[in-house]
Each structure stands twice: as C-alpha cells, then as structure tokens.
C-alpha cells in the first residue's frame, strides 16, 4: 500500500481538490507464456496501478515520472474515463470519475504522445469535429479555431491543410489546440513532447508554461523527461511498477533521497536508473494501456 502523498500548494487547501485519487487500482489480464498439461495457456491478473493515492489543488501542475510500463498512461486513461478501475476511488472536482463520468468528461481533456487525428482531414476540420462533442456550434468554432491555433504557435493559414501533410511537431500543436478548445479545467498531458525535435519540444514546453500563467487549468503531466518535470511542475511524482513512491516539489524530492539531481533521486527511490532497461516484468508492463 502506498502512503497518501497528497499535499497542498503553500499550505492553502482548496475546498474541493481538483483531483483526489485514493488507493486506485487497475489490473489487466495477461496470458501465461507456458501452457498447462492440456496445452492451454492460462491467464493471470497483472497490476498496472497498485493503490495510488494523491491529490491536486486547483491550478497546480504535477509531473509524474516513470519508465515505460510504470503505469503513467494507465493513470491518465483512468482519470479520462477511458478505463474502468478495479479498486479505490478517483474524484475530479468532487465528481466520482467512475460513477459520474459525464460531468468529469466536460472538465477534462488530454494530450497524448500520439497526436491522433483523421489524417485526411484538415486541422480545422479535426478541431471542429472535436469541438462539436463539447457542444460548440459551427459559428463559435469558426471564431475560436484561428485564435487557439495562433496561441499554440500553429500558423493559422495552414489550418486547411490535411493533417498528413503536417510535421509531427505541428500535429502536436494541433493536439494541444484540440485540448484547449474545450476549456478544460483539468489537462492531462501524457508525454506531450516525446518524439518531438528539440525546437518543437521547447515550443510545447513554453506553451505549457504560458498556460500555467494564463489559463485556469490544473495540469497532470506524465513524462520521461526529468528536466521537463523539474521545470514545469509544482510537484514531481515517481511512479514505479504501478506504485506512486513519492510526490513532492523537486527540491524536497532531492533532499529526501539525498540526491543532487532528479535522476539520482529516481534511482534512490526505485533502485534502478531512469534509462535502465527493465527486466521481464517491465517488458510485459510496456504493453499496458
């Protein structure tokens, strides 16, 4: 069982936390490698998230660090109502994520590592499609799209080009625009800069920084990038094999593990280097949703 590592910003506790996760569990079924005497491969439960607890205050940014298969994406998917849990509880602004998904969906949006779009459709068409699901009329969308694209640094005049003709960095900017178009109060960023070239990466990070200053959003950022976590987040969490080992401001984390860098703190917390290849369990965990 992971201890509750929730805390508040500057000692000021919001009446309703933006995110409240308590003892959250998610298991997946996996086939055994070996066959039994009848020649059949049995199945077993593998825990993707093991009793994770934390809370976030409104307007706070937290970064979750973890290797592939640590459960970062599973956590994001659980909070996005895309997965059903196997135990524990998650609340977003007081709404039960699993019992009241509709109000939660109105408040949450997400940017994932893959900028997923209808590739033959243009950026504007993809954004319009996403906006309709949040009740935005064609008129409102037409006005909002150029503004939001400009804000994320996407050249507005290219909005009618098919997504398949845009670079990966440009696509990721459209993904950010898609998430912001619906004015989410909780933004879930699942490795938004992974695979981007250095310039695009910096632009996206700069945009997240702007967002923190100007938009009433709470941000949960899952990342591989230690520097990104340290630069953008109020608190940094270490998720290892489904367990949240710590969630503290980066400096406190380093102090706690007597480390000079976050990488050293990660090593001290997990017993493994951040970039280290995992063992068989980690290989298996990499396929988790």
């Amino acid at each position, binding site marked *: 069982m992971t201890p509750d590592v929730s805390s508040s910003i500057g000692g000021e506790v919001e009446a309703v936390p933006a995110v409240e996760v308590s003892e959250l569990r998610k298991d997946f079924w996996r086939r055994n490698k070996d066959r039994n005497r009848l020649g059949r491969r049995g199945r077993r439960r593998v825990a993707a998230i093991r009793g994770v607890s934390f809370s976030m205050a409104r307007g706070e940014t937290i970064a979750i660090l973890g290797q592939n298969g640590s459960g970062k994406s599973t956590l994001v998917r659980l909070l996005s109502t*895309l997965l059903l849990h196997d135990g524990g509880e998650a609340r977003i602004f007081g709404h039960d994520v699993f019992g009241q998904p509709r109000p939660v969906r109105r408040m949450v949006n997400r940017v994932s590592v893959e900028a997923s779009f209808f590739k033959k459709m243009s950026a504007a068409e993809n954004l*319009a*499609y996403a906006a309709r699901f949040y009740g935005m009329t064609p008129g409102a969308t037409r006005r909002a799209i150029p503004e939001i694209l400009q804000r994320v640094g996407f050249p507005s005049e290219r909005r009618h080009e098919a997504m398949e003709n845009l670079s990966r960095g440009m696509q990721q900017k459209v993904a950010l625009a898609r998430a912001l178009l619906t004015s989410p109060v909780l933004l879930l960023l699942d490795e938004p800069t992974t695979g981007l070239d250095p310039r695009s990466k910096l632009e996206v990070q700069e945009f997240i920084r702007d967002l923190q200053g100007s938009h009433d959003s709470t941000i949960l950022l899952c990342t591989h990038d230690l520097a990104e976590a340290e630069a953008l987040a109020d608190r940094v969490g270490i998720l290892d094999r489904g367990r949240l080992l710590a969630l503290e401001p980066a400096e406190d984390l380093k102090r706690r593990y007597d480390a000079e860098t976050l990488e050293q703190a990660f090593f001290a917390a997990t017993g493994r280097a951040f970039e280290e290849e995992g063992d068989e369990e980690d290989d298996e965990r990499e396929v988790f949703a």
Partner: protein
Amino acid sequence: MRAAAHALRHELIGLAGVVERNVYLTRRYIWWDAAWFIWTVANTLTITFIAKGIEASGGIIDVNRATTSLLVGAVIWAYLGVVFEFLTETVAWERWEGTIEYTFMAPLSRAMHLGGSGVFAVLYGLIRAILLFFVVAAFFDLSMPSADFFAALVVLIVASISFFGIGMRMAVLPLISPEKGAQLGYVAQGIMLVCSGVYYPVDVLPGWMQAIATISPATYALDGIRGAILDGEGLGTVWPDVWPLLIIGAICIPLGLWVFHRGEQYAKRHGKLKRSG
C-alpha cells in the same frame, strides 16, 4: 426545463458533428467511393441478368417482374452493406486513426454519437440505393408503370430504424476484437438477408429459416418495397409490412444501445480502446 433544453442542444450539436465528419471523410474519399459504386453496379448486374438468363435457357418467366424483384433484393443488399459499414466504421475507423479515445472521453451520449453515424449512413445509403436502382434499371429498360416509389421509400426509411439498431450491435465488434470484429458485420448482413428472401420468396426456405425471417426487418422491407414497386401498393396497402418494422425498430434501438454499452464497458475494463490494445 431550460437545463434539459440546453443538454438536448449540446447532444444534437454532437450528433451533427459526427454527420459533418462523415461528410468531410466522404468528400476526401469520393473517387474511391465512385470506384466502389461501379463495383456495386457490376455486382447487381450479375444478379439481375439471371432473369434474362433463365428465359434464354428455355424457362418461362415474366422477365420484367423477375428482374425488378431481383433488383430490389440487390439494392437492399447494397443499402444494408453501406449502413452496416458506416456504423461498424464508427469504431473501426477511429481505432485505425487513433482518435477513438478522444471521442470516447468526450461528454456526448453514445446514443447521439452512434446516432450521428446512423443518420449519415441512412442518408448516404439512400442516395446510393436510389442511384443504383435507376442505373441498373436502365440496363434492362424495365417497365414499372404502377410503381409507388414514395411508398417504397417510406418502407425503406422505416426499416432503417431497425437496420440502425442491428448496426449498433455490429459496431461494437471492433471494440471486442480490434483485428477481426469489423468483418463479422458482413456475417450478420449475410445471415439476415439469406433468411429474409433477398432473391426469392421466404416460403422456399426451410422452416427454421422462415422462423428467423419473421423477426428479420429485411423480410418486411423487401416485401413492402417489392409490393410498392411491382404492384403499385400505396402506404395503406404496405401497412402490414410497416407496423412489424416499427415494432422491431422499437426493440432494436434500445437493444443495440445496450449491447454497445456492454461492449464499451468490456473494452474499458480490458484496455481495448487503445489502438494496439
């Protein structure tokens, strides 16, 4: 009351969004669709020429009536194919593009989400079916002096409610089996039509298949449309085919939504929404 009206407006905007997206995608793939339409015409001709073939080989047959009857069957087959394809693609296409998670985490009811696909599928399917009917009819110089096309259209639209409900059950299959689920839609389409007298009277089928025919909406659709086109039956006369369609539709829609909901819950429990999951 005001909140309910606001919620309904939100839902209808979402439904229109799905229709709009399908319009965009259809525009992008219009030449592929045109090629597919040529294939459908060719396929329909292989069936409708059978009547002439029977006469040519010495059979005594009313070629005009038999050709029209076969044409109705082939057009309904093609129409059902389009409706099921669009509904199955509601999930399959989004999984392929990777957008499904964004769609499923949006605050739109599944009824409206699927409804948008259904509305577009029916509109697109109707345009295609009407075009197919008249293009193939032109090959045979068919005479349909007493045809009531309006009544035939009404029967097809009413039948579409049931087809939509069954299509929703098909749409869930790619959620359960990302690789092969979509193909099972063709199985359902084939079974339904073979039991519904697509190219022959239902009476020629074995008893157990006739039992299936009584609960298949395609049976009443084919019967009503053939009655309207071949015998000039108006809306009043085709009513015995319309009311069963309304009842089957009233059962199929909630059943389809329930099945889809169960499939969605399964996918969310087992992490199947993810493209590679």
